[in-house]
Each structure stands twice: as C-alpha cells, then as structure tokens.
C-alpha cells in the first residue's frame, strides 16, 4: 500500500520535475534547477531509507561532494571563472548548480523518479490485485473457486515481501553509486590523505630541523668554543682550564639529553626495540596518572603503522591525563583479523579537543584508520582507534585456497565427463545415424525408440557441462585470487 502511495507521490514529483526541466531548458530558467534537484534528492533519499527499512538493502548516496564555499580573494572580490563578484552569493550559486548539473547521479535520480511510478505501481498493485481476486473468486460459486481463491490470496500475501525486495533491487540499480563514482570517491580520499601525509611529514621534518638547530647544534658549538678556550689556558692557568673542561663535559651531557628528546619525538627507542605494546606500557609508566595497559597482539604491525598508532595513543593519553578529574585510564590494544584496535577509556570529564582529535585523525588517515569517540558528558569517554589493515601482511600470506567442494567438482568433471560425452553421447549418435544394429553398452540405444534422441542429446549436454565446469572453475578461482592479490592491501607501502 505504502509503495503505491509513494509511487503516486513520485508521479507528482516527476510531473513537477519534468515541467521544471522544460522551464529550465525551454525557457532558460536555470534558477529552477537547484530547487528541483534538491527536491529530487529528498525524494530519492526517502527511497533509499525505505529500501533499508523495508528490505534491509543498503543503498549508499552516490553524489559528488558539494563544492567548497567561494574564497575571498586578497583584493576583496569573489571570483567565479572570469567574473568578479562583490558578494559570495552568485559564485556560490553558480558552483552549486554546476555541481548538480555535472553529477551523473542527478540524472540517474531523474530517470529513477520518472520510471518508479510504473515499477512501484506494478509491484505494489500486484499483491493487492492477487488478494482482491482471491477474495472475490469464492463468490463465483464454482466447486474449485473457494480453494483456488484462497491459494491466489495466499500467493498475494506471500509475494508481497519478495516484491518489496525486487523494488529495493530496482532502487539499487539506479540510485546506488556506480563503480565509477565509487572509484572517483576513492581517488578523492587517496589524494586527500596523501596530501595530508606529505604535509605532516614535512611539518615533522621542519620541527626536527628546528629542534636540532636550536638545541644540540648550538650546544656543540658552545662546547667547541669552551674546549678552544681551555686549550689556550692549559699551560698558563691549568686550574681555569680544568673548570672550562668540566663545563664542556656538562654541555656535552646537556646536548646528549636534547638529542635524546629529539630521538624520542622521531621514533621512540622502546617502540623500535619492543614494539607497540611495550612502548605504550613505557608510556603508561611515565604518565602522571594511573594507566593500565592490556595488550593482545600476535605479531608486530609494520613499523609505519606502529609508529602512527603509538603517537596517536601518546597524544590522546597526554590529553586524557591533562583533563581535570582524570585519575585512571585503561588502554586496550587488540586485533580483530587484520585490524588493529586500540581503545582508551578515561574517567576524565571532557572529550579530546578538536585540535587533538584532528591531529590523531591525520596520523591515522594515511593508513585508512579512524578515531571514534563515544560516551556522554559526565561518564567515562572511550576513544577507539581502528586501523583496518594494520596486520594484513601476516594474514594475506595465506592465499585463498579453493574450497573442497570446488576441488571435488573439478576432479569429478575431468575424470567422468568423457563418459557421457563420448561413448554414451557422440558414439551412440554415430551408431544411431548410421543405423547400426550393434547396441553394445550404449544406454541411449537400449531405451524405447521415442526416447533415444533425447537421451543422446542429454548425454552430450551432460558431458559438455561436466568438462566445461571442470575447466572453468579453476580459471575463475585463480582470476578472483589474482584480483585479490593485485589489489594492494597496503597502499601506503607498496607504491
């Protein structure tokens, strides 16, 4: 019923849409495009949520991301192509309609809206009709009418959910993103994360350069100068030279201390020596609040992932420890298949600040990792770091093997396929055509005359199917395997 009603609403929308399209193109009223497309998107959005609610089929949104807002140029104007504007309204509007116009999803939406009233009508009315007929039939007073009518009505009731499924499939056909859109989305994501990774890398390098320049380098220079002075003094005033030498030694210790701090910021030694688990344990020991660490990792992740995870945990822990009222933090490092998961549960009041969260997300983004923050104000906050492919290198080594039933089919096809194809099929056909009296062990020639040809054809088909199956199953399997292997799981390492 609801489907029919929805179809009616869509019909109205389609008519309105078609009218406005005529206005847009026929009369050049471009300003109508954006509201119409917006309305379409609302309607198709409803259809998507209906497909999920009624049939459990998820239909993701296929739209391109909206354009960024216009940027104010240094000269105080907003530029849209070759025209300058005083206010951002017109360039924003221009960008918006171009965005909608260029997106193929806009046109797929329109096509769906135009066709859906018919599809929904047929699919929605069919069970209603069946039930209606079923209820009406007994009134024909025919002996078979009552059971037949009941059967038809039952069929109508039973068919309803299937038809809803069918409708959801139809929705997927036009409203789900196409492979191209998905690829474009992946490309955008990769480009963004790559840019962020490069940016943060270079920022890191700059920070390290500055720390070395202002710290250890400067101290070594001072040390050299002190040693030079001591050299000059050593004969005339050994006591003063001794004081200077002691000072130089102190300076070298300080320089070492600073270098140690820089090294810790680049790649903490414990992380290199012991891996993520113990590095986080060491971090916990140095933390001013009480931190409990639980680790369940069978293998060490790749060094870059390990480092990203460590610094993410380090930043979040520092943040959690600094919050008022924070006394205890529980860190749990575990794995689920190839995914590395770290949860940080603290009893502090506040969630991490936007800045911290963004920094952590940027660290994780190059590895497709995400940070999830859960918890309501006033209760413990749980931060979850999820790195989905962190341990892939240990798991993909087991190439997907062919399941047992497929192996059986292949062996069965190759070993017995010839039997129906050649002797029972082709040879009996030759015997049959040449009219030989000899029947030997050919099944087809022993059955009654009218069944002989069907049996021959059946045997040939059976043999062909068996051998064909045996040949294609391994091919298909190795293709799937090849595709799985060719898809880089560790995009960030195997470039």
């Amino acid at each position, binding site marked *: 019923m609801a489907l029919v009603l929805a179809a009616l609403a869509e019909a109205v929308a389609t008519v309105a849409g078609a009218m406005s399209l005529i206005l847009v193109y026929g009369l050049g009223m471009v300003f109508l495009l954006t509201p119409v497309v917006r309305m379409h998107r609302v309607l198709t959005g409803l259809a998507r949520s209906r497909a999920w609610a009624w049939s459990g089929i998820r239909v993701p949104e296929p739209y391109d991301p909206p354009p960024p807002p216009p940027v104010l140029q240094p000269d105080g104007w907003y530029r849209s192509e070759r025209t300058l504007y005083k206010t951002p309204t017109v360039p924003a509007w221009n960008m918006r309609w171009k965005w909608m116009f260029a997106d193929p999803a806009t046109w797929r939406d329109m096509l769906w809206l135009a066709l859906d009233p018919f599809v929904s009508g047929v699919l929605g009315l069919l069970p209603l009709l069946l039930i209606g007929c079923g209820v009406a039939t007994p009134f024909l007073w025919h002996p078979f009418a009552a059971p037949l009518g009941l059967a038809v009505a039952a069929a109508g009731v039973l068919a309803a959910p299937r038809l809803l499924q069918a409708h959801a499939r139809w929705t997927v056909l036009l409203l789900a993103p196409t492979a191209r859109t998905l690829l474009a989305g992946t490309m955008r994501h990769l480009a963004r994360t790559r840019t962020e990774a490069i940016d943060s890398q270079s920022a890191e390098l700059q920070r390290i350069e500055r720390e070395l320049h202002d710290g250890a380098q400067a101290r070594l220079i001072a040390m050299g100068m002190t040693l030079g002075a001591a050299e000059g003094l050593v004969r005339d005033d050994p006591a003063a030279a001794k004081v200077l030498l002691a000072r130089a*030694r102190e300076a*070298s*210790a300080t320089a*070492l*201390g600073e270098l*140690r701090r820089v*090294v*810790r910021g680049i790649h903490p*030694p*414990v992380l*290199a*020596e*012991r891996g993520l688990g*113990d590095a986080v*344990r*060491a971090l916990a*020991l*140095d*933390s*001013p609040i009480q931190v409990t660490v639980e680790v369940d990792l069978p293998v060490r992740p790749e060094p870059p992932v390990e480092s990203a995870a460590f610094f993410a945990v380090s930043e979040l822990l520092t943040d959690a420890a600094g919050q008022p009222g924070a006394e205890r933090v529980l860190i749990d490092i575990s794995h689920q298949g190839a995914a590395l998961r770290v949860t940080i549960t603290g009893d502090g009041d506040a969630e991490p600040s936007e800045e911290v969260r963004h920094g952590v997300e940027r660290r994780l983004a190059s590895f497709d990792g995400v940070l999830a923050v859960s918890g309501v104000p006033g209760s413990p906050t749980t931060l979850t770091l999820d790195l989905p492919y962190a341990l892939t290198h240990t798991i993909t080594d087991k190439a997907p093997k062919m399941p047992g039933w497929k192996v059986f089919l292949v062996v069965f096809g190759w070993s017995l396929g010839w039997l129906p194809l050649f002797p029972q099929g082709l040879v009996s056909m030759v015997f049959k055509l040449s009219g030989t009296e000899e029947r030997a062990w050919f099944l087809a020639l022993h059955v009654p005359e009218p069944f002989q040809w069907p049996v021959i054809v059946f045997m040939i088909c059976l043999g062909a199917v068996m051998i064909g199956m045996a040949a294609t199953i391994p091919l298909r399997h190795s293709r799937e395997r090849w595709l799985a292997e060719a898809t880089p799981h560790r995009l960030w390492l195997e470039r």
Partner: protein
Amino acid sequence: MRVVIAEDLHLLREGLVHLLRAHGFEVVAAVESGPELLKALTEERPEVAIVDVRLPPTFTDEGLQAALEARRRVPGLPVLVLSQHVEQLYARELLADGSGAVGYLLKDRVLNAHQFVDAVRRVADGGTAMDPEVIAKLLASKARNEPLGSLTPREREVLELMAEGRSNAAISQRLFLSESAVGKHTASIFGKLALAPSDDDNRRVLAVLAYLNAAQAG
C-alpha cells in the same frame, strides 16, 4: 676484577676497555652481538658485565634480553646495563628477580669516569646502580602517592640518592651531611613508607626500589 663488555660501536667499546683497564679491571671479553654476549657471560662467568641494550643482529633490546637470560642461568650474575635512553619498563624487568647486583645507567654517565667506575664496582659487589633519570621518573609517577608526598624535601633528596644505590656514607658526602644525620633521615623515610628498616645498604635499596615499582604497578 674480571669484566665482560658488550657494545656494538667500536669506538665506544674500545673507550670502555681502556677506561676499565686504566682503573685496574681485567677485560676478559669485549663482544659486539647478543649471541656472543650470552656465550661470553655463561662461559667466562665474569665478576661483572657491562652491556649495551641495543645490539646486533636485531638491533632491538638484544643486549637486555641476553643479560636477563644469563641472569636466569647464573642467578645473581652482576650486570650493568648501558643505554642511550632509560625506561622504567626496563628498570623494572632488571629489578624483577629481587636479587640485586644490577645497574641501569645512561651512556652519558660514562663521561664521568670516576662515578662510572664507582657504579661498576657497586654492581660487582652485589649492589645496585640506578640512573638518576630512572629514579626521577619513578618518583614523578608516584608524586601523587600519599606517603611520598609527606616526605620533607631533604628526605626526598636522600630517597633519590638511596634509590640510585648509594650507601649512607656516599649520601652524606654528596649532601654535605654527617652520616648520622643521613641515618636519621633514612630511618624517618622508612617509617613514613612503612618499610622494614635494615642496616644492609643493598637490601635497603632493593626495598626502596620495590616500593617505587610496586605502587606503580598496582
């Protein structure tokens, strides 16, 4: 006194050998990798071993693992671990068996030859030598702990030096106090931390370290 040295950097290894020979030690083996170290420790049975944490072939904590393994096979084998960085985690692992005769120092401490040799001797005699930085970290993470908070600044200084592994005599020298004053301070510290007092310097240090460690773990 017979010493085994494990250090992968040639320059530093030679430096250590010279330094120790100049102070009357007998260097029986100077090795550069984990497996060699373990072999030297179990075969030579030195009176003290000086071990770098990071050694070939893995360049992880090979040296520490070899030292711990050797101490499992030869209980109480004196080991002084040197590293470019100090971690409470490693200090706890070294102290875990509670038998003493361990040291854990930053490589920087080698610069002060006198103090370094002093630490080597202390470890060889079954004492401990903990880097001030480790002690500072242990104390810092215990700063919110009640009994520690009740110590006077002077008592805290004494506690730090004691945890590094120094005897009352050494502490009194460092802080320019009389030995009896240090004795009073240590008694007061032990009272506040509810530790059993002991006259034996080494047992006393181990008690303090165990206290600092245990509370952190709990």
